[in-house]
């Protein structure tokens, strides 16, 4: 019992620190959003990746960066309303 509580607390602390971590009740939508955001963050963190994309899409690096940043808002669309209501 106490152990369970501790695990719970540890998980909460972890989640406060790392937004991308999940738990058994994480929805697919939350997870995919995090996946997408992490991906975009990762692209921006690798300059060579940005350059590659810029060349490939025939734009400049800053445009790609902006694209990556803008896409981080609701990366997989708004959360499915129905499921939330049911719960």
């Amino acid at each position, binding site marked *: 019992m106490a152990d369970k509580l501790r695990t719970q607390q540890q998980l909460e602390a972890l989640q406060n620190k*790392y937004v991308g971590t999940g738990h058994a009740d994480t929805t697919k939508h939350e997870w995919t959003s995090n996946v997408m955001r992490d*991906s975009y963050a990762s692209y921006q963190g690798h300059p060579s990746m940005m350059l590659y994309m810029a060349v490939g899409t025939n734009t400049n690096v800053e445009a790609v960066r902006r694209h*990556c940043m803008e896409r981080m808002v609701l990366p997989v669309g708004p959360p499915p309303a129905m499921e939330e209501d049911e719960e």
Partner: protein
Amino acid sequence: MSDADFERARQGAAERGASNKGAKGFDRSSQRTNSNKASLTDNFDSELYGNGGADKYAGYNTSIPADDEMEVDGDDDDQNGGRLVGQYTATADQIGEWATGEAAEDDILNSREKQAQIQNRESDYQRRRFQRRLSGGAEGKTFKDTMEERELEREEERVRRLIEDKKKDQIAKGEDGMDIDEAKPTLKDGPEEGSPEAKPRRRARRRGWDTDEAAPVTESETNGHKTNGDAAGGETKKRKSRWDTSSGAETGESYNAEGQLVNAEGEVISAETKVPKKRSRWDATAAPGASETTNGDSAVPKRRSKWDVAGPAGAVDATPAAGSGAAAQPVMPFGTDVNSRNAPISDEELDELLPSEGFQILVPPPGYEPIAAPAKRVSVAALPTGGFMNQEPVDARAMGKQLPSEIPGVGDLQFFKNEDMHYFGKLVDGADENDLSVEELKERKIMRLLLKVKNGTPPMRKTALRQLTDNARSFGAEALFHQILPLLMEKSLEDQERHLLVKVIDRVLYKLDDLVRPYTHRILVVIEPLLIDQDYYARMEGREIISNLAKAAGLAHMISTMRPDIDHVDEYVRNTTARAFAVVASALGIPTLLPFLKAVCKSKKSWQARHTGVKIVQQIPILMGCAVLPHLQGLVDCIGENLNDDHTKVRTVTSLALAALAEASNPFGIESFDEILNPLWTGARKQRGKGLAGYLKAVGYIIPLMDEEYSNYYTSQIMEILIREFQSPDEEMKKVVLKVVSQCAGTSGVTAGYLKETVLDDFFKFFWVRRMALDRRNYKQVVETTVDLGNKVGVGEIVERIVGNLKDESEAYRKMTVETIEKVISAMGAADINERLEERLVDGILHAFQEQSVEDIVLLNGFGTVVNALGTRCKNYLPQIVSTILWRLNNKSATVRQQAADLISSIAVVMKQCGEDALMGKLSTVLYEYLGEEYPEVLGSILGAMRAIVTVVGISSMQPPIKDLLPRITPILRNRHEKVQENTIDLVGRIADRGPESVNAREWMRICFELLDMLKAHKKGIRRAANNTFGYIAKAIGPQDVLATLLNNLRVQDRQSRVCTAVAIGIVAETCAPFTVLPALMNEYRVPELNVQNGVLKAMSFLFEYIGEMGKDYVYAVTPLLEDALIDRDQVHRQTGAAVVKHMALGVVGLGCEDAMMHLLNLLIPNLFETSPHVIDRVIEAIEAIRVCVGTGAVMNYVWAGLFHPARKVRTPYWRLYNDAYVMSADAMVPYYPHAEDKIERRELMIMI
């Protein structure tokens, strides 16, 4: 230094050895450790130097912040606070020693229960908290009302003081005749009133149930109890029940009134006079002169019931004060609670007492409710003991039956105290819950929960606390605090209870938030005392509550609540309020409180307000430390002007506040103090006594903040006063002066030349006197300050001045000198010491060392430090030192021998430097003779000395040769004393490491067996040394034999032993290459025995941990074994297997063993669903290690499958894996995210050039 000395020493050892041979032989196990010898590390003279490290500060006020201790006292110590002449009198502690019973033996009856109570360790000052009223709160009163009330209190106080002064004046003028006149009537009245009253009282006493109930049990009555019973009886208007004989039976009676009745004799008596009017027929039985008394004792002139078996002497009035010579007061049985005899008579007893026919038991009338008498009000008068005691059968009620052990609806409690009855009595009244109103039900619910929290078992407390928290808002602030706060004011509260109740308040506060406002003041009254508690944690709790309260109630409300207390008449209230305000400041931020503080500090109306205001400013830095820096200017401005206040106390507290601010902001913030430098320095010239101490303290803390130039100037300005105060007899002043001197000496602006010229002479004249060495606190201060001065002026200067003291006749003074020299020299070396001084120093320290009556670690360290600092310059003195050592080695006292041996270990290096190899050889030969030493502490030291010598001279040139020495040490390995074990194993390990060839393999094997026992030593150092030694021995004689020994040891039952064996195997594998060990180890795994197999796995786990990368050659060899382990039915098998995999995987990262690791991962994954914490932790660790080894992507392929599994039980562990991977290598996961249907569509990755 002749050979004769050595010879003598050796002989001494032989003789002693012979004399106690019978007792000891070589059976070391018979040597027990705890001798009653004085320990070297403790102070022998515990009166002077305290009781070693353990309780060194007992009796000192360690926890209340030292900064304001000179200021805490009440208002009226102003006059003597500033005295210029020292008072030669005993300290308050000494005076109170006998009064408080500090010196008396602990009363065993005054049980632990009493000692645990908070109030018993509180000072009188702290106990003043009980004088505060809860009802004086702000609730229902406007701010104006409160202020008016305070005004009234002040006026009362003023008048009271006037009257007192007037009286004092009169007495001083010799007009005290008037007092006698006043006293006369009272003196006369005594007997006059006494005579008529004594009689009815005596008669009344023997009447009714009150007598009979107590009689059979007690045989004697004490004043308090008896009158209590009578009083209640007297008040009784109507008997409600036949059985209801409890003293407090009447409902209408309030606790308070009853308490008064008990205490005030006069009222009791008057109450009794009413009794005859109304009497139940039971009263008649034993009534005086009643002819129809049922017992035959009616002839006895003094009415006594037959139950009163105390014998004739018992007939005397039970009031001892009556002086009727109650000679044979029967004693209570030892250890029995006095209360038990005054407890109500049980039904069974009444049945026995009364005739069974002709009476009937009445039903209590409706609406009747027995009062649970507040037990604490029943004054427990101490019975005079001694004399004859009847053997009584054990009374059931004496077994603690009178208190309920179980409260309905609460369950079994850990304890239930008398006092609890007062608060929780309602729970046992047996009222029907259905008849109660909602409010009452709520009240009972809270009561029950509080009782559970306060007295319950830990699980009970936990659930009750949670319920209280969760329902706090629905209960409401009123209902909660009306019960919690009085509980906290209870006098018999214990630490644990207070802690729990405070915790309740904390939780409830959090939930109630601003609903708490009406109770702010009352909560403060209860919590503020915690701020000056001795216990650090209590203070922390208090702070936490007040800061939460401040956050919940808001600044404005806090200020308006606490404002009236700022100029309260009672200094205690002001003090605690100041501390509480400081907490509020730290909770809500200093800037928000600053305007208010400014206003308070400049208050024109009362100096108390200014004093409190400054005190708040003083407390803030103490609480917040360097966090005051941003607001330093504001705070200093706030109090700056108070340095010139008219009132001394305000000036003093201002200087203390400045000191606290400067201390907290060190080394920054001097510019904030610019304004007050001038007033402070000029003020310091004007002050005397206590005020001056404060000023000097502030100066001392501000000087280190200054830059070089200024500090030089300001130091020279203040030094004159400091030097003048060197002579002050006041302890407090001495402390401050010493502190300031060391602070001044520490600043860069003060030069060595200046100190030498102006300070040193006076300093040594006034502080380096024998008297200073006698008081522990002074001693420390002086040593510290001298060392600080020494850091500036150099070693030579200091040592030159004090070296003469080494030959002083006072031992404490010598010790103080040695300690100072040791600290100075260890800080700065001995280069500054000239040849002549060096001679005197060594001579002096040798003298001090020899003269010590109690062997002291200080002298040992001092000697060692001096010799090591002098280095080769010691050469001339070594013969003399060694002969001293030899002489002391031969001493009868064990501690002297031990100290001599310890000294050898600390100077061995220097002896080598001086080229005294021959001397060392002789010394070690003598030590060798001493290996038969019987005291383990001494033996340990001797072994340590041996080790030190072996270390410096080397194995080959050791005298006596190792081949003689080691066999002699082997049996000592069996000794169970830690110090001996540690030193032996170290010595043996060193020999095994450096010169294993000097002993044959058989001897090493013998040592191996002895070492096995050491593997389960308690001390980690010993186990580690033993393990390392295994490694060395294995290297020396080859691993086969050692390994065989170790593998056999895996079969033993003792777990610790097996674990250590596993470690040793790992170490042997590391030192002798794994291929020498692994085959044998894996072969051992075939033994069908759980312990052995687990031991093998454990050994492999350590093995792979130690060999690291070397493991890559063995991965494929051990994989089949691991397969078997990981699919075993036994959990521990799989757990240990996983540990092996973890260490192996981490060792072979990037070394091309990925295929094997994937194979092991496949075996590990099914273990993911283990629930035992150890197993699952090891498995997860192993999977993580494999992830590191084979890469995140490959392992994540296993994880995706389970993240959204329909079953939660499956999802949970998978998410754990995912989270771990995410935390450790989120970036590496990005390329491997799966394509989840339409959701994750990362078109950016599709870009192709």
